[in-house]
Structures are given as C-alpha cells and as structure tokens.
C-alpha cells in the first residue's frame, strides 16, 4: 500500500534505501524481511516439537488433560481459557489494524484510542500466559517417575484422575531440604516433594480402587490403565521419585520434552508479545506527542502493526499444534 513517508534524505539513493522497490517503503520492507526470518525461526521450533512428538508418538501427553483450568473457576474446562486467550489476541490485532486505518485518515484521537486498546489486549494476553505457566508449573494431580524416566499417574476405577493428596498421607520427614544457607554454599537442591515413594506405596495399598495409568496411548488414543496387581507391582518395582508439577527436567504430565517445548515455544512467543507491547507503548506515546502528526504520516503505526499481527499469526499456529492437534 502506498503511504507518504517523511523525507529521510535518501531520495534517489538506490543503495541508501531511497528507491522503493515493490512499491513498499524501506521500513515496511525491512519489517517484512524480519517477519519472514522470524516466521522461519518459529516454524523451526514447532517443527522440532513435531519431531519430538513423532519420536514419542505413542507416549505424548494429551493436551486436553493438561490445560483444563480457568482462573476463578473450579472444575474441568479443557481449551476454554486458551480459546479466550486466542480471541483476546485476535481482538487486539483488530484494534491495531483499526489504529492503522485511523492513521491513514490522519485521525490522531482514534489512533490514540485504538493503540491504547491494543496495549491493553497485549497485557491481558501476557498476564494470561503467566497464569497458564504458573498453573502448569504447580501441577494438579502429582505422579510417580519410574527408573526408566516414565511417568505413572493415578486414576480411580472409572478412569478419573486421582491426586496424590487424595490417597497418600505424608508422614514425618527426617530429611531436610538442602539450602545454600544450611549446607554447602555452592550446592542447592530443588524443593522436596510432599510425599516419598514409600508413602505413595502405602497409600496405594490402602485404597483398592486406585489404579496406575501409564503414558502409553491405546488404540482409542487414551492412556493405558493397568490392573490392580500390575499397578502395585509397577510402583513398587519401578517407582523412583514423586513428581508434583512441571519443570524443565521432569513433569507430572508425561514426557519431559513436552514441558520443555511448552516453556520454550510459549515462552518465546510470550517474549514476542511482551516486546510488542513495549514497542506499542513507545509508539503510543509518540502518537500522543504528535510526532507522526508533524511528520505527516502514521506509517510507524503501520510498521509496528505488522509486527503485532505477526505475533498473532504465530499464536494461531502455536494454538493449533500445542493445544489442538
């Protein structure tokens, strides 16, 4: 699209960005270059996620069972909150494009308003993502990791998930957490789990209705539930560590790579949203100060708009490949 840009002193200088190949201004073209390369980066990450998932195709966690929370509501609502986040981001894309449109009409008031709404949308999204991370890290049911690194979860006879807290009683612990202040100052360990494997075995023995569920997906795409005898045997022979929540090394949802990619890809995207918000704020103040009014063109809004839409575009793909497929 043709937009009047302020004179940059490069007119007619072919190698200074003065000419306009493809009828796009220098700045917009560079933004497109950046977007293409960033798109390749993100597709590299998502393709790597696909690689790991294909590698463990029969063991991968089911996203619907992992992301089931909505803030301020109890219960099981898979997908709802992520769908809300997606909608927020698309909505902020709309206010952004409205700001661009208002810029074409040199309407400073409207640009200001729409930029403001875009920033608010971005902040809601980043906040939601932080909440989603916190929920993911905290976990909700707890699981046992085996010697081989697999995750064993617990279900009742109806196949519903059972939390460790529902059937395991914590006994007095004699093992204190090693912190820098009470031990070697250059060594520290992560928080100790609430329960030990021994306590989980005791709890499992006392509750005949609790069964173990493995990572293996069956024909129907559901996780395999073991028989009672097999459940006890697995936990007793292979149970090594109690896992609550998720970190980069281990997580209660299944394959550790799942959490690694979740943190990395949504984190990288969240970082993009965050920097987008920062850039939007800068442009927002420039709009208020009348910088673009004086320059006679709101093309800067358009350029930051391209970036913002791109962030939205990436999220559409992350949403599909992390939460849906």
């Amino acid at each position, binding site marked *: 699209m043709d937009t009047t840009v302020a004179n940059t002193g490069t007119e007619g200088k072919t190698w200074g960005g003065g000419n306009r190949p493809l009828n796009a201004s220098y700045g917009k073209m560079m933004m497109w270059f950046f977007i293409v390369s960033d798109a390749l980066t993100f*597709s590299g990450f998502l393709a790597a996620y696909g690689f790991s998932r294909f590698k463990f195709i029969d063991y991968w966690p089911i996203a*619907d069972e992992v992301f089931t929370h909505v803030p301020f509501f109890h219960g099981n609502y898979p997908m709802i909150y992520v769908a809300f986040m997606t909608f927020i981001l698309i909505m902020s894309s709309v206010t*952004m*494009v409205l700001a661009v*449109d208002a810029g*074409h009409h040199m309407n400073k008031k409207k640009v200001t308003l729409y930029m403001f709404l875009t920033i608010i949308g971005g902040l809601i999204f980043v906040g939601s993502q932080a909440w989603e991370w916190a929920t993911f890290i905290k976990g909700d049911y707890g699981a046992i990791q085996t010697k081989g690194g697999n995750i064993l979860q617990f279900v009742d006879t109806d196949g519903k998930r059972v939390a460790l807290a529902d059937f395991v009683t914590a006994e007095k612990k004699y093992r204190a957490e090693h912190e820098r202040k009470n031990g070697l100052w250059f060594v520290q360990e992560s928080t100790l789990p609430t329960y030990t494997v021994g306590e989980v075995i005791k709890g499992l023995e006392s509750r005949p209705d609790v069964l173990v569920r493995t990572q293996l997906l069956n024909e129907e795409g559901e996780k395999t539930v073991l028989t009672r005898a097999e459940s006890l045997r697995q936990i007793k022979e292979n149970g090594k560590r109690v896992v609550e929540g998720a970190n980069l090394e281990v997580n209660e949802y299944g394959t550790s790579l799942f959490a690694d990619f979740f943190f990395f890809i949504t984190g990288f995207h969240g970082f993009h949203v965050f920097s987008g918000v920062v850039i939007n704020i800068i442009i927002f103040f420039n709009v208020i100060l009348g910088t673009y009014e004086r320059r006679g063109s709101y093309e800067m809004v358009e350029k930051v708009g391209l970036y913002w*839409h791109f962030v*939205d575009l990436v999220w559409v793909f992350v949403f599909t490949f992390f939460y849906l*497929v």
Partner: protein
Amino acid sequence: MAHAHKLEIFRGLWKFKSNTQKIWGVLAFLTFVTAIEVVLGIYKPDSLMHTWMTPFEGGFLATLGNIFLSPFIYMKPLNLIFIVLTIVKAYYITWDFMHMRDEKSSLRRMVVWTGVFLICYLIFILLQEGGYIESVYSSGYVKRDF
C-alpha cells in the same frame, strides 16, 4: 492520499463498504473459525478420530499414491481439519490485517513463497526423521536386520 484497499473477501462473495467494515467482517470470520476449532477440540467426534484410508500396498505406484494422499492416509481427519483451518486463519490475518491483499504481487510472492517453501522443507525433514526414530524404538532398536 492513495490508500487503495481491496474491499472484498472470499473472491468477491463478501463485499464491504469501507476498510473498517472489512476489518470487523474478518474478525467475525476468524472468531467463527476459532469457535469451530474449539468445539471440535473439546468433543473430538469419533468419526474424525480414525484415518479414512489405509496405506496402499504394493510397488512403486502404491508408494506414489501413499505420498500424494499422505494427509488422508497418515493423519487423523480431525488433525487435518485443524491444520487446514489454521492456514485459513493465517491467510486472512496476513491478507487483511497485514494488508498483503493491497501490496504488489511481487512483494506478496517474495514473502509467501520463500516462507512456504522453506517451512515445508523443514517440516518434511524433521517429521520424517522423528517417525524414523520412533520406528527404531518400537521395533526393538533394530531398523534393518541384515
């Protein structure tokens, strides 16, 4: 000022009076598509959970057929629907929000073809290799037994 916007989507099926109206129209469409995805994702209809075709057996032509029809042979229809809908959404975000529709076709091709070509290559290589490693795992760590 020359801000020519193309004000129709769906190849002229849906025309708008102004650019602002077009933006809201695209939002309505994107929301609709997302809603379909979410509903399908929650209910996961049984009919879409199993592939509709089985791989062809036989010689060279069977292999060729498997390659050409791979989305239907190796992918659950539900996942195929998700991916197609995602690409549809990506198209409207790029074309209408990022104004690709109004750019010169040469700029459009420069951006889209480069990206699409390299991304297809990346996906092919990585998924192919992931599947290979999975097959090594699932066949007792033996891929070729001479």
